[in-house]
């Protein structure tokens, strides 16, 4: 098996996805199937190969330190599901 149901549960928790048992089962089968197919990658010798993080041929773009954004009006909150005044409202955060 390339991936177990336990691992699927762990990954779903990391990704904050609530899965129904049937979904969990199907995903385990799907991911297992996909990862088995991808297993052939391990046969490629990459010992001296640099990973590609970026394909670009140019260097980092740096911006000048100027604060040109105006104070925001209603836009930040316009799509918010729940607010109180100008604050976003969420279920209680427990530390």
């Amino acid at each position: 098996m390339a991936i177990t149901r336990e691992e699927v549960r762990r990954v779903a928790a990391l990704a904050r996805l609530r899965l129904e048992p049937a979904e969990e089962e199907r995903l385990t089968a799907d991911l297992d199937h996909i990862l088995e197919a991808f297993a052939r990658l391990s046969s490629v010798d990459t010992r001296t190969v640099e990973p590609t993080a970026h394909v670009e041929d140019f260097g980092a773009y740096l911006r000048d330190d100027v604060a040109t954004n105006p104070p925001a009006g209603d836009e930040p909150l316009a799509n918010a599901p729940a607010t109180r005044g100008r604050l976003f409202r969420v279920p209680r955060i427990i530390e």
Partner: protein
Amino acid sequence: MTTAGIEPVIGLEVHAELLTRSKIFCACSATFGGEPNTNVCPVCLGMPGLLPVLNRRVVEFAIRLGLATHCAIAANSRFARKNYFYPDLPKGYQISMYELPLCTGGHLEVLVDGQSRRIGLTRIHMEEDTGKNIHEPNADTSLVDFNRSGVPLLEIVSEPDMRNVAEAGAYLRTLRSILQYLEICDGNMEEGSFRCDANVSVRPAGTTALGTKVEVKNMNSFRSVEKAITYEIERQAAALGRGESLRQETRLWDAEREETRPMRSKEFAHDYRYFPEPDLLPLVVDRTWVDEVRATLPELPAPRRERFVRDYQLSTYDADVLTQRKDIADYFEAAIAAGAAPKEMANWVTTELLRIVHDEKLDRALVIRDWPVTPTQLARLATLVQSGTINRNTAKALVPRLRGTTRDPQELVAAEGLGQVSDRGALEAAVADVVARHPAQVAEFRSGKERVLGFLVGQVMKATGGKANPQVVQELLRTALVA
């Protein structure tokens, strides 16, 4: 509580908010405050489709700190995503640095009980700050403000080189001092621009293996850091003493109960799934840029302290106090340039001047500009006292009168006849008068109570409108009392 036989191992992780004009990845102002969610834009709110663009000055500040702490500045470094879910983290990941930080392998020289100790720095890297969660009491909701989201931070990670609380405190003060000298962070723990997490473990003295590491968070002042680390060392030592094993965990400092406690939330084992940030290209910092930044570095606290000891013959302690802040050290040297004697001036600055600075919280500013008196004025006062022209009390009383003016104290002394009276003849009468009026105290002194002399000197000072030379008064009194 004895922790004999136990060696604490302490590492500190500091997050410093930078004093740039704009945020690290967008052009919102970095000085936030005001109405919630007004100092935001689609980038720092994590709106769909928006991308980070790196602020050059953040890199410059990071290079400055790296050079000031003897780090190696990487020619190639890279941003990475730290993935986790939290309401104040708008993108669901924080753009930070992981495998390839900008600065590595530096150190700080810290003074503990007059001895210099070297504490290693593992790394310094750049990252973005999160928004702020606001917890309402008795509510089942929390509120989130993103004004702070995207403010630039430097994360400064020390090696676990500290072995006691004093070293930890000294390290933090030294680091804050350096940040202020470089004018990249105002180092204010109470306001959150300088934050500290501690990693604490203990082991039997003389061993080298590291014990279980506990991370301690939520310390909001230098005192809290010291108390929390002290508490944690004792807790761990006591547990080991009872034969208990310790859990690797994150604990929060509870300032009210004065204890650390484990976090209540179900803490997912932190799998941050770091990977290189694809929206930002690798950062190249060449020699030229590093040299340009190096040329802008001021003389740093430790070398300046050593120079003060050497050139001004000050004690290490005094030199340390004077060089904690660059503006104070600059003030001191300006006063020397105006003619004050170093030892005198050291005394005046560390007592009189700093008292006012602390009382009026002038040191809240990154650089103090609003001095109670100018260096030249203070230099003049010190010189007047040293030459005996006025006594110390008169000088102290003159400070508030000089404030906000450019008046020469000497001219004021002359104008109001504030000169010190040192002539013995002039003072004898006052002395005799005081002796006559206070037979009880005279008797006490004669019976051995040295301390009452101070009272009698005070009475003479009062009688002379504060102008008497206290040393002369003391001599005359002793003579009179013996008789």
